[in-house]
């Protein structure tokens, strides 16, 4: 396959898919490429998974009656606030990457994607650091020194599940970035990856408030 074919292929295929979709009922109700619609539907289901986990956390916390004071668990809010800043910023650079990819500015798209990955790596590293310090202090999945086992159970499960999403997102972004570096990408491909990354940021907004602030 020649270079020109390789660069033109992804989007041409996307456009074909939209224009010749299986929809036979006149105007498409979504008027959106199937890849984007698919990602939105996946995220809609993921919303329910996280809503359920966070509800379970709320129930556990209310039922427990007492809950460890966050100042006893986390050494101040500086680390988690920094993590939140970084993740929000990586969401912004992702949005900028989508904008650049749409304009066809390959260099800018790659630069913003790399910044996004850097932010994700920093976030994941901080989370590993935080988990390590909690485990060093004696926190386990089913027990902890603060006397409320439900705390570490919900903390490790929910931040762990979110961290798993971040890790998945980093792999996803790495693939997209490598493709972009080779010029084999489409604005749509970057946009769909962006939806996933923004969702990870969105979930963290809730975890940040519910675990660290309230």
């Amino acid at each position, binding site marked *: 396959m020649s270079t*020109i074919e390789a*660069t*033109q292929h*992804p*989007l*041409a295929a*996307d456009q074909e898919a*939209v*224009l010749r979709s299986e929809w036979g009922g006149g105007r498409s*109700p*979504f*008027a*959106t*490429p199937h890849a984007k619609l698919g990602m*939105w539907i996946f995220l*809609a289901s993921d*919303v*329910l998974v996280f*809503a*359920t986990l966070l*509800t379970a956390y*709320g*129930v556990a916390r*209310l039922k427990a009656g007492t809950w460890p004071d966050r100042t006893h668990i986390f050494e101040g*809010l500086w680390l988690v*606030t920094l993590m*939140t*800043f970084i993740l*929000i*910023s990586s*969401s*912004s650079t*992702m*949005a*900028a990457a989508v*904008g650049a*990819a*749409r*304009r*066809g*500015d*390959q260099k800018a798209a790659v630069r913003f994607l790399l910044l996004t990955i850097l932010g994700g790596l920093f976030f994941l590293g901080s989370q590993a650091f935080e988990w390590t310090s909690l485990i060093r202090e004696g926190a386990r999945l089913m027990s902890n020194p603060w006397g409320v086992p439900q705390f570490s159970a919900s903390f490790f499960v929910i931040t762990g599940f979110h961290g798993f999403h971040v890790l998945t997102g980093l792999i996803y972004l790495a693939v997209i970035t490598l493709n972009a570096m080779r*010029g084999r*990408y*489409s*604005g*749509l491909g970057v*946009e769909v990856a*962006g*939806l996933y990354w*923004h*969702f990870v*940021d*969105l979930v963290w*907004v*809730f975890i*940040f*408030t519910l675990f660290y*602030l*309230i």
Partner: protein
Amino acid sequence: MSGTAHSAVEHGHEHDHGNRLYFLTWLWLLLITVLEVGVVLVHMPRAILVAVLLLMTVLKSGLIVANFMHLRFEKLNMIYIILTPMIFALIMWYGVALDY
């Protein structure tokens, strides 16, 4: 070649304020986060604190979904896809709340 990066169903107006919109959203998200940490450090009645924090969290999530995820530029049908699970979540929260 650069034309390959254009999505088939693009909305023209997204080009105009793209990066500016992302930048402003980023600033707002950071500002609200600072305010969130601020209200935690200031002593106030717990019920008010929780209400204020939840309000700011919902505001932040709205900014992310509307601007970063571009939901406000999508067809109404796409918005319904996102609102539907929220209705199920509300039913779940109502069911849970009945136990308290």
